[in-house]
Each structure stands twice: as structure tokens, then as C-alpha cells.
């Protein structure tokens, strides 16, 4: 009993630290990628080719003065970054990184993932409310509006592979794609993947759906009053959430850890999985740097008038196909 608990603790500790390290370096990846899209170089000065930039950023954020607004609701304000960060970290709990390599491969893995990842709204709204700042509050309300609107199509689209694989367990969904990745399952899987990307961008509040941190009218949005380590925690949570959904996208649609040589060693499978997740992440970043922002009402219109009914139709079509052919494509 104790041995198992210690074991679980160690595994969780390792996974958590790997993820935090990854999050730090993903910021560098994103900045470099974005810079190249604009014919710039990006971070270059700290370390060779800017490789130590994330560490410098983290150090800088730690050294920063922690300012709490006088009118802030202190308990809510101080608790918000943690409440925001914890669900973003928890979503990695059910992700299997390779066969038998993960914290917990629950039989309701994807349900857990979707439920927990939607919890970040609570921390977000606490931050916006507790700051006692009109910009933060407006931004938090917009964020809640948007995240709720996009979580529904996100969930419906994520259910397409679940229906086809016939299981809520993430490793079963990965195994069901042994023959054909769902992204290549034309047209249902392909459309589902496109919808997944759009819903991911929106649920992460990334450009072009970033109305909650509109620089011109809302400054930095709900985190406008946060500084120093609390700001770092919020950033960490956002990027962790982004990577988590990238991993989920790679698992649901891109065949998870399937790749040359991954049958023999799970570690190579984990590498393939990470590469695919990074691919999804870069596609999201690519979208981010290609479009201008969309108005708040347009964002809601896209979700409720197009994405939501289309995702429902897609789900129904998948259900019909699965009913005709049986799970795993018959």
C-alpha cells in the first residue's frame, strides 16, 4: 500500500517536472516559430541561439515584485493562479505517453480530461473578479462566455474518435488507430480534426479568438493585476493547457505513439507522441500568426451558428457509420 503510494508519488513528480520543463521550452519554440513567420530571428542573445531564454524569463519573473492591488479581494486574488494552474496540470494525469507509460490510464480517461480542462474557467474568473479591476472583470466575463461556447463543440468533436474506437480509455483510442489514423479517416475524421484545431484555438483563447486579452481595450485581460510569480503560474497554466490539448489532439487524431520503431520500445513511442503533439501545437501557432482578431459577437456566432451544429451533425454521422459497420470500422 505504502509502496504503491510512494511509487505513484514518484511517477507524478517526474511527469509534473517534465511537463513544467516542456512548458518552459515550448514558449521558446513558439517565439522562434512566430519570429520566423515574420522574417525575424526571435530570442538569440541568451545562450546559443537563445536556448537559455526560457530560464532567463523564469528567473526574471521570480525576481519581480509581487504587487497586490489595495482594493483586491485578497483570498480570491491569491488563490486564483493556483486554481487556474491545478486543472491545467491535472489533465496530464490520464494521458498515456506510450503503452504503459503514464500516471493513470483511467477507463474514463477522455471524460476526465475534458471535464478537468474545462475547470480552468473557475480560476480564470476568480482572477478577474478578485483583481477588482474593470478590465480584468470584463476580460474574465468574456473568457467564460467564450470558453463555455467552445467547450461544447470541442467535446463533441473529441467524441468522434471515442465513438469509433468504442472506448473512453485513451490508450484504447490510440490502439484503435493501429490501421488508420483518424485524421486520415475521410471525410469524418478529417473534418473532425479541423474542427478540433479550431475549437482548441478558441478554447485556449489564442489569437484569432483572443478577445479576453485584447491589448487595445482590455490590456492583458484577467491577468492585468498579476505580477511576478503569480503571473508566471498563470502563464504556466495556459501553456500547460495548450500542450495538454495538443497531446490530446495527437492522441485522438494522429495515431498517438505510432511511428517507426515504436512497437519495440515505449520510449521511442513517447518521442513520436511528443513530436506529433508539437506538430499540433505548431499548427495552432501557425493559425495564430496568420489571422487577425475576430470580434466577440463573431466568435460566439461561429461557435453557436456553425461549429456547434456541424459538430453535432458530424457526431451523428459517425454514430450512423459506426452503427452500420460496428466499432473499429467493422
Amino acid at each position, binding site marked *: 500500500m505504502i509502496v504503491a503510494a510512494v511509487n505513484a508519488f514518484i511517477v507524478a513528480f517526474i511527469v509534473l517536472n517534465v511537463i513544467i520543463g516542456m512548458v518552459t521550452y515550448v514558449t521558446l519554440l513558439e517565439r522562434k*516559430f512566430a*519570429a*520566423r*513567420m*515574420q*522574417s*525575424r*530571428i526571435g530570442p*538569440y542573445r541568451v545562450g546559443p541561439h537563445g536556448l537559455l531564454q526560457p530560464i532567463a524569463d523564469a528567473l526574471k519573473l521570480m525576481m519581480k515584485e509581487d504587487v497586490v492591488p489595495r482594493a483586491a479581494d485578497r483570498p480570491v486574488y491569491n488563490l486564483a493562479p493556483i486554481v487556474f494552474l491545478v486543472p491545467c496540470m491535472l489533465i496530464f494525469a490520464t494521458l498515456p505517453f506510450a503503452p504503459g507509460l503514464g500516471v493513470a490510464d483511467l477507463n474514463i480517461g477522455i471524460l476526465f480530461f475534458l471535464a478537468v480542462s474545462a475547470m480552468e474557467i473557475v480560476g480564470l474568473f476568480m482572477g478577474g473578479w478578485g483583481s477588482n479591476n474593470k478590465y480584468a472583470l470584463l476580460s474574465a466575463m468574456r473568457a467564460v462566455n467564450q470558453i463555455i461556447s467552445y467547450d461544447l463543440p470541442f467535446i463533441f468533436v473529441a467524441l468522434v474518435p471515442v465513438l469509433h474506437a468504442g472506448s473512453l480509455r485513451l490508450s484504447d483510442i490510440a490502439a484503435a488507430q493501429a490501421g488508420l489514423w483518424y485524421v486520415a479517416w475521410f471525410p469524418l475524421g478529417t473534418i473532425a480534426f479541423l474542427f478540433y484545431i479550431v475549437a482548441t484555438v478558441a478554447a485556449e483563447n489564442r489569437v484569432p479568438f483572443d478577445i479576453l486579452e485584447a491589448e487595445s481595450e482590455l490590456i492583458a485581460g484577467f491577468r492585468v493585476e498579476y505580477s511576478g510569480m503569480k503571473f508566471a503560474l498563470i502563464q504556466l497554466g495556459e501553456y500547460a493547457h495548450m500542450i495538454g490539448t495538443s497531446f490530446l489532439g495527437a492522441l485522438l487524431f494522429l495515431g498517438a505513439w505510432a511511428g517507426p520503431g515504436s512497437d519495440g520500445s515505449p520510449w521511442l513511442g513517447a518521442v513520436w507522441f511528443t513530436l506529433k503533439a508539437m506538430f499540433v501545437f505548431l499548427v495552432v501557432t*501557425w*493559425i495564430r*500568426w*496568420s*489571422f487577425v482578431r475576430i470580434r466577440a459577437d463573431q466568435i460566439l456566432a461561429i461557435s453557436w*451558428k*456553425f461549429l456547434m451544429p456541424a459538430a453535432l451533425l458530424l457526431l451523428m454521422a459517425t454514430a450512423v457509420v459506426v452503427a452500420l459497420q460496428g466499432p473499429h470500422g467493422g
Partner: protein
Amino acid sequence: MASRLGESFWGDFFRLCRAVPRSMKITLLNLFRRPVTVHYPDKTRSYPDRYRGLLALTYDKETGEENCIGCRLCEYICPPQVIKVEMLKAEKRNFAKVFTLELYACEFCELCVQVCPTDAIIMMKSFDMSTADRRELLLDKDRLHHIGLQFEPSWATGNLLRDMQTPPKAPKVEAAAPGGAAAEKAGDVAE
């Protein structure tokens, strides 16, 4: 596509489907282009010929005398009034007893260079004078001399600029009545 945005759902949808790949193609092409960044402190860009950079005072190379005659034309024309000159009267020619230039307020308009009758004040092809102490940007004669030696001068000097900017002498045929040969010559040029 005559319909405006918002008129028909399917028209909008069709346009969106065309626009998304197009804009994403542009960013993708950019991704594989070479970055245009120049690593500034390591590599310097080549400046244009008439670059308007730091200001400097010139000194005669042979005699080592300053070219400034303290005429104060630059002080009078300077729009932000950052130049202060005091004349030192001498026998052969005049000198500048004091010449100060407050570079922190200079707007680099080049007017002082344009009016200088002796090409004494010029601009350099450089802007490398960032400092944490504003007093270092209060340039006196020695500092202006030093800047002149330190960097490459720009093409523009007062005389060259005036030569360039003076309109070519209009050959006035009717005004040039006396001296028939010269008038005829000018008339030829005008044609």
C-alpha cells in the same frame, strides 16, 4: 463575389474557406524565407550616403585648425535650439570660443549642416551613442571633434548640399541684354 459580408451564410462560408488557406500560405512561405534581421552590435548595416546621424565638428587636416568661424548661423536656424556658439574674434579669421550641442534634444534635421558656410559641422554615419547618463550627450567642442574622428562622415556638407539644392541658373534671355555672346550662349542652353 459581389455579395458583402453578412449577406448570405453560404457566401461568407465559401469566402472563408478560400481565405483561410490563402492567408496560411503566406505565413508558411514566410517561414521558409531567410530572416531579414541584422545582428546589430555584431554586424552593422551599411548606411546610406546621406545618413543623418551624430553631429561632429571638422578640423583642417593640415593645420589642425577648426573650420568653425563662430558665425552662429547654425544656432539661429536650429529648430529645437540645441546649439550654442560664442564667437572668438581673432586677426585673420574668427573661431568658436564655445560650441555646445545638446544631442539629447537634437532632432537630426540637418539644417545646421546645410547652412554652415565652412563645412565645419557635419553628420556622421552612426547612431551609436546610447548612454545611461544624459550629461554625456551634452557635446562640447572636444567631444564633437572626437566624434568626427571616430565615425565615417556622411556625404553631406554645407557646400555640397547648397550646390545640389541651388536651382540651376535660369538663363534669362531678355534680362541678359548686354554682352550678346553670353546671352546667345545661354539661349542655346535653354533650348
